[in-house]
Every structure is written in C-alpha cells, then in structure tokens.
C-alpha cells in the first residue's frame, strides 16, 4: 500500500497473520465447547461455562500475565513445549495468536451456542432413524445447520484478534515485525514525536478492517439464510 510506511504495512500484515492463526487455533475447540455447553449436562458444567467466559470480565493484562506464567519459558506448559516440541510462544507471533485466541474465545463460543440452540433437534433424530451415528450426525446435520454461527463467531473473533492489545503486550511484548500488531503499532506511534500521522493512518486501517468484518459477516448470514429458505 502506497501510503503506508514499511513498518506500518508490516504491522498490518502481521496483524492479519496473527488473527488468522488465532482463529484457526480456537475454531475446533470453540465448536466442541459450544456443543458441550449447549447439548450436554455434566458435573462442572457451570464451572466450565464460567471459565470460558472469564476473559470477558478479566482485565486483559491479567490474562496476559497468566499466559506468561503458564507458557513462559519457565512456566509448566511453556517449558514442556520448549523441551519436547522446540516451540517457543513467548515473544513470538504464535504467542500473540494464543493471547488473542484466549481473549476472543468467549465471543466465538457465544455466537456458536446461539446458533446451535436454533438447530432443530428433531432433524438430528430424523438422521438417527436414517442410520447416522453420533459423529456422522454432527458432521452432516448439526454442523452445517449451525454454520451461520460458526462463521459469525470466526469473523467476530478475527476482528477482535486484530484489536487485542493488553493481553498481547503483556504476554509477548511489543517487538517490531514479530509481535507489534496494529494496536501496538498505533500505541508506539503515539509514544513517538511526529507519530500523529502514522497513528491516524493505523486507526483508519483498523476502522476499515472492523467495518469489512461486519459487512462480511452480514453477507454470509444472508447467503446462508437464503440457502435454507428462511
């Protein structure tokens, strides 16, 4: 993009890459949890529900701090990952993806649950009588019918990931080219003398991305509705 400086376009492409990783990481788990929380009653249901929603009510800095404790090089999970898989999360874009994934997770699960609740269980029963087992049923009936919620959740989470600040800067710091996403770049620009123009440009990009996400989500929802004849 002509009007962006190299470091600004770097922040943009990094943000997109982090958000994409974040959504890819959390999507399967979010579908599983949405299904568990909507369709199953089990011991600890309320606790799990609260745990999933925790990032909504915790200060993002706290989430970043907890991630640092768990996934830092000396944290219980971080040290294991480093030793066994040679994967480092701290100060990396994968770490940034993890932090944004955790923060956007409740939004994603919530959108999916709302969608799953509208799926007619009678259709699943019909699939059963036609010989479909549990996984078969989920893949061929439940998942396609909750697809609007899955897409809405993914797009919302993607947009939220682009904007996550507190958890990212706490967990993976603000390293240009590695973890300096759009909001972090914007923050850095504001800290620099003569950074006002750069900050304004970054803000406009964020605005356009957010708006694009919302429009895309609406477009998907309409397409699916038309497909299902609603």
């Amino acid at each position, binding site marked *: 993009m002509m009007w962006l400086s190299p470091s600004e376009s770097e922040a943009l492409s990094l943000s997109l890459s982090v958000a994409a990783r974040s959504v890819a990481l959390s999507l399967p788990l979010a579908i599983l949890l949405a299904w568990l929380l909507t369709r199953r009653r089990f011991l600890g249901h309320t606790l799990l529900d609260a745990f999933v929603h925790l990032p909504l009510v915790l200060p993002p800095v706290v989430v970043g701090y907890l991630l640092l404790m768990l996934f830092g090089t000396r944290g219980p999970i971080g040290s294991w990952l480093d030793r066994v898989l040679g994967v480092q999360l701290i100060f990396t874009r994968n770490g940034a993806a993890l932090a944004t994934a955790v923060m956007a997770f409740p939004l994603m699960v919530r959108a999916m649950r709302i969608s799953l609740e509208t799926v007619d269980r009678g259709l699943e029963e019909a699939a*059963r009588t*036609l*010989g479909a*087992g549990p996984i078969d049923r989920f893949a061929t009936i439940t998942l396609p019918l909750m697809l609007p919620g899955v897409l809405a959740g993914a797009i919302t989470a993607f947009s939220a990931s682009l904007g996550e600040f507190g958890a990212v800067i706490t967990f993976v710091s603000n390293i240009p080219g590695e973890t300096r996403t759009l909001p972090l770049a914007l923050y850095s620009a504001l800290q620099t003398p003569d950074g006002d123009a750069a900050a304004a440009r970054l803000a406009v990009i964020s605005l356009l991305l957010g708006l694009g996400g919302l429009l895309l989500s609406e477009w998907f929802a309409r397409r699916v509705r038309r497909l299902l*004849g609603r």
Partner: protein
Amino acid sequence: MLCVAVKKRRGNFSLDACFELPTPGVVALFGRSGCGKTTLVNVIAGLLDPDSGRVALDDVVLLDTERRICLPPERRRIGYVFQDARLFPHLSVAANLKYGERRAPARRYVSLDAVAGLLDLGPLMDRRTHQLSGGERQRVAIGRALLSQPRLLLLDEPLASLDAARRDEVLPYLETLRDQLHVPMVYVSHDFDEVLRLATCIVLMESGKTIAQGGVGEMSLNKDLRSIIGADAVGAIVDGTVLGTDPSSGLMRVRVGRGELKVQAATAAVGAKLRVQLLARDLIVATQAPRNLSVRNTLSAVVTAVTDDDADSDLIAMDIGETLIMARVTKAASRELGLAPGLPVWALVKSVSLRSHAFAAPPAIAAPPAISPGSPGA
C-alpha cells in the same frame, strides 16, 4: 412379526403398551390426541427409552430391558416418517433421499429409481425442501425413510398437517407401499377414515394404555372404538371379494360373508378385495323376507347380540357368515320385533351408503417380496 410390550412413566403420564403385528401388515395405532401414540412410536424407534419392556421384530431383539439389550435408533433399521416431515433444510430433495440410502446395508430391496417412481418424486429432485408443498414434503419424507431400507416403517400422523386435498394426494402412495412393497407399517392416526383405508389391524389406545387390538373387521364393532369415533361413524368394516359386474345396473357385485352386495366402485378385477363400511345407522332389520322395496341390498343374517347404545336405541350385532355387521334400531322397534340372539333376520343395506366407503382392502396374506425387508441388520 412385530412384538411390543413396554412400560414408561413420565410425570403423570404412564405408558403401558402391548401389541403384536403379523408382518407384512399395517397396524394402526388409534386413539384420541394425547393418548400416548407418539410416545409409543418413539419407544419402538428407540428415540425414547422405556422403563422396562421388550421390542422385537421377527427374530431381531431391538430392546429387552431384562437382558440389557437396547439398540440405538441408528442401528434398528426402522424408518420413521414424522408428522412435520423433518426434511433437512440444507440439502436438496435428492440429497435428502440419498441420506438414508447411503447409510443402508448393502443388500437393498428398493432403489432410488423405484422409490422415485412409486412416489412420483422425479420432478422434485433438484428442488430445495422449502420449495415443496405440504403433500410433496411428506412424499419426500416417506421416500427418504423407505430408501434407508427399513425392516419396519413408522408413520406418526403423516397426514395430520395436510388439508383434505393434500391428504387424498398422499394416501394412494401409502396404499402403494403396502400393496407393492409389503413394508410392515405402524400407522399412527386419530382419523378413522385413514385407518380404514390403510390398516390391516387396529390397536386401540386410551390414556397411555393399549386397550384392545385385532383385525379391522373385528375391531370395527369394538365398544371402546365406538365411543371414540362417535355414533354416526359406527358400523361394520367388511372386506369383501369382487365377484364381477352386474350387467343391468353396472354396479360391482361383492361377496361379503354368505351374502352379496352391489357396490358402486371403480372397476376392480374379479377376485380383488374390496373393503366396505356398513354404517349402523344405514342398516334396516326385518324379521321377514322383505319384498317390493327400493333398497337393493339385502343380506340374510342371524342376530348374535343386542346391546344398549343409548337411551333410545339398541345396537343389533348380526352374523352374515363368519362376518359380523351391526345395525342401530330404536328400542321400541327392537322390542316389537323381538330381536334376540339366535333370531334369523334380514339386514337391508341402502346401496348409496356404500359408495364413498368402498376401499381397496389390503391382501389377507401378501406374497413375499423378491428380497425380504426383514433381512436382519448389517
């Protein structure tokens, strides 16, 4: 043979059902709304687990709480046609039909082409399900269930959500399934006309319990059934045999019991079965051979029972040769004629009353299909 004996309590409601259906055949679960018909069907399908009981189809035990056997619905191979069709909205008609077929065992007794032909589904194949009319939806639902190659087909009021015209559109297709594919069916309905048209036997339900069962002819005179269908619909259902056409009147001659009726009906082959309804209010009883009457149909009979109908009338059950019919007469007439068991009488049937009730009766013993739908599961 389908054997069902199950119990289930659910709050204030308790299901206690027990019946047998010789296969192939169509059993109608008949009773007022809310008497537990759907609950019973869900138990047979496996969608609802009973507290105790047993469900077996031929030599396959689907459920036996004592032996801790409970096959999940997906392994019972029982087709289910729901009242609300339950077509998959994200799939085309063709994909809906193939859903069950793809999951059916390799040995099949009916193909997609055959089902499409039987149910006239060809023109609907590429449509989305929301573009279908109510009758079309049910036809697709029936086709989808059939293509899963079921050993038994459950139909839970499949016509209840349709208007009269749509109902008449779908009913002939169900008769086709019965007469051509010989699929055993359990048919839930609270519409007696539908039952008369399709069933070989009737299981009567009341507040969760099966209270009577038997062949349609025998059940048509049942006291509990009479109270459900109302006085005007009371009458014997008789499966007669077509003897031929009467040359002078053009009416169909049908043998019922020892006697013969002339019925206005669409042409049927000699020897074909024809189901007729003789409403109790349309029968006249005479103790002497009647002459010089406008009534065309007279059957000689022997009174077998005289029972109270209401304050003013009696129901007279009469044997016309291993077949029972029933007439409603006033108590005064009943007394004056001295109607009592053993008395030989003549039953006069107004021809007109038969016209709209002449149904193609199901075969008494159906020929086995080329490949039996009863082959046990894969």
